[in-house]
C-alpha cells in the first residue's frame, strides 16, 4: 500500500500538469532520462571469419564469433540496444561465392540486427539472389530511394521502419547509391534509382513530423564524401532538416570519431562509418530527455571517447 501522503502528492502533481499542459523535465515519476545505445557495422563483405594471421595490419581482426561475443557483452551492460548495418554485407570471401550470402545473413540474425540497408554489392547475386536471402533475415532491409517495382524485391524492401526501444521512438530509413555504372545492369534489372536528396527530405520529414519519431536515423550506402559533387552522406546531412544520425558505408572510411555536420535547419547531424570487413564495431550512446534543443545549447559537450583503432 502506498503511503497516502506521497500518493496524493504524486497524483496532485499529475493533475497540476493537466491544468498547465506543461511537462517539466524529469518531474514525473518514471520520467528519468532514457538511454539508447546504437551499435553499427558497414561493408562487412562476407567476412565471417577473422582476417587471417598473416602478419598484416588486419590480422586476427573481425569475424562473427568475436563480433557476436562483443555485442552480447554490450547487451549485458546496456538496456536499449539498436544494432544496424549500412550495406555491402555480401561479397568478398569465398563464403559468398559458395553460399551466396546465406551464412552472412543468418549470422546477422543471430546477433539480433534491427535493420540494414542494401549496398551495391548486395546485388552481386542478382535481385533474385538477395530476395532468396530475406527469409533468413530476422530484420528488415530498408531502402527508400530504390523503386523495386517489377523486380523480385517488389514489396519486400521497405523504405523505413519505426522501432520503439525503452520508450524512445526511432525512425530508420535507408538510402542506396546510384547503380548505373557501378552495378552491372543484369544484376539490378528493373530497379529504379531515385534522387536520394529528395527522398531523404520526404522520408525524414514524415518520420519526424508525421510519425513523431524522437530520433531519425539514415542507413546510407552513398559514401562518406567525395572530391566531386557526387551525392554523399555529407550532402544528405547538409540538405535535410530532420536526420539526427547517418550510419554510412561504401567508401570504407574509418572515422576515428563521428563527423558532426550542420544540417539545413541549423541543427547537428552526426555521421559515422566504421571502415570495412567487420574489423570495427561503432557505438553511439544517446541520452534522451524532455528538454528540447538540448544539443544546440550543449553542442560543445559532445564527448568523444576514442577507444581502439581497427
Amino acid at each position: 500500500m502506498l503511503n497516502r501522503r506521497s500518493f496524493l502528492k504524486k497524483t496532485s502533481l499529475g493533475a497540476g500538469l493537466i491544468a498547465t499542459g506543461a511537462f517539466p523535465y524529469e518531474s514525473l515519476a518514471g520520467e528519468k532520462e532514457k538511454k539508447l545505445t546504437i551499435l553499427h557495422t558497414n561493408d562487412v563483405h562476407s567476412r565471417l571469419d577473422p582476417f587471417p594471421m598473416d602478419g598484416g595490419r588486419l590480422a586476427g581482426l573481425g569475424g562473427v564469433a568475436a563480433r557476436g561475443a562483443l555485442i552480447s557483452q554490450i547487451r549485458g551492460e546496456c538496456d536499449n540496444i539498436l544494432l544496424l548495418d549500412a550495406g555491402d554485407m555480401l561479397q568478398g570471401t569465398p563464403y559468398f561465392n559458395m553460399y551466396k550470402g546465406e551464412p552472412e545473413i543468418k549470422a546477422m540474425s543471430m546477433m539480433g540486427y534491427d535493420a540494414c540497408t542494401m549496398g551495391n554489392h548486395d546485388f552481386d547475386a542478382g535481385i533474385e539472389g538477395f530476395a532468396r536471402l530475406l527469409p533468413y533475415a530476422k530484420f528488415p532491409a530498408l531502402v527508400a530511394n530504390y523503386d523495386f517495382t517489377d523486380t523480385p524485391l517488389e514489396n519486400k524492401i521497405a523504405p523505413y521502419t519505426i522501432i520503439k526501444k525503452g520508450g524512445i521512438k526511432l525512425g530508420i530509413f535507408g538510402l542506396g547509391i546510384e547503380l548505373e555504372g557501378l552495378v552491372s545492369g543484369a544484376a539490378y534489372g528493373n530497379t529504379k534509382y531515385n534522387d536520394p536528396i529528395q527522398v531523404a527530405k520526404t522520408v525524414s520529414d514524415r518520420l519526424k513530423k508525421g510519425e513523431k519519431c524522437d530520433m531519425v536515423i539514415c542507413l546510407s550506402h552513398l559514401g562518406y564524401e567525395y572530391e566531386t559533387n557526387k551525392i554523399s552522406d555529407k550532402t544528405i546531412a547538409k540538405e535535410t532538416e530532420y536526420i539526427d544520425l547517418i550510419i554510412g558505408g561504401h567508401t570504407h572510411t574509418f572515422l576515428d570519431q563521428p563527423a558532426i555536420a550542420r544540417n539545413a535547419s541549423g541543427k547537428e547531424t552526426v555521421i559515422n562509418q566504421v571502415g570495412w570487413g567487420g574489423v570495427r564495431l561503432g557505438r553511439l550512446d544517446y541520452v534522451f530527455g524532455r528538454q528540447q534543443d538540448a544539443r544546440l545549447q550543449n553542442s560543445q559537450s559532445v564527448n568523444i571517447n576514442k577507444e581502439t583503432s581497427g
Partner: protein
Amino acid sequence: MRVSIVHISLLLAVVTACHKPHYIQEHNSRHYAVGKEAKTDSSYIQFLAPYKQRMDSTMQIVIGYADTTLTKAQPECTLGNFIADAMLQAAKRSNSSVVAAVANQGGIRLPYINAGKITIGKMYELMPFDNALTIVEVPGNILVQWCHHMAAMKGWPVSGIRYEIKDGKATAITIGGKNVAENETYLIATNDYLATGGDKCSFLTSLKATPVNLFIRDILIDYVKQLNKANQPLHPYIEKRVRYAE
C-alpha cells in the same frame, strides 16, 4: 480515496494518451576493434563449421607463393600489375593480336597479400567477382578517353599501356611502346564489368567486345600455378607504367 482514483485515471490518461516527444540531450561515441580481445562466442563457430569445412577443403589449397608483399595503391601497385599482366597473358592465348590489358582499381578487393604461400581462397578474396575476360576493339580516340578516365580515377592497373597523370588527365600515353594512333584500333583485354559500362566506362559499351569464357579470378589462379610450376615466386614490380607527371 475516490478522488485519488480519479486522479490516477487522469494521470494514466496523460501518460498513455500519445507518445510524448523525447529529445536528444547528449551523445557519446566510441568504437571497438573487433577481435582485439580474444573473446569469441562459440555458437557462431559451431554455426559456421559446416559452411567453413566445405569451403576450406577447396580454398586452402596452396597454388604458389609470393616472395614479396603485394599491395594495393595508386597510381600504380603490385597487386594491380599482377592482375593486368595475368589478364594480358590469358587474352593473348585466346587472340595473339591483343596488345594491352586494363583492370579497374575498385576491382582489387584486398589491401595486400603478404609474402608466403598463396591459396585459392586468397585469389577469391582478391577477385571475388565472377567477372569474365573480354577483348574489346578500342579505337585510338576512345583509348585516349579511357586513359583520361583512368587518370581522373587516380590510376588504374594496366599492362602494355603507360601513361602519366597531370591535373587529373592522362598524358604521355603509349601502347605497346608507341604513341596512340587515333585512327588505329587496338585489341584490349579487360573485364566484362568495364566493357558493359561499369565504373563509369559508358564509352566502352558501343565497342565490339568478344567475351573469353574465363573468370578473371581463374586467370589469376592459373597465372600463380604456372609460376609455381616453373619454380618461380609471384613477384610483380612497380615499373612506372602509371605515374604522376613531373
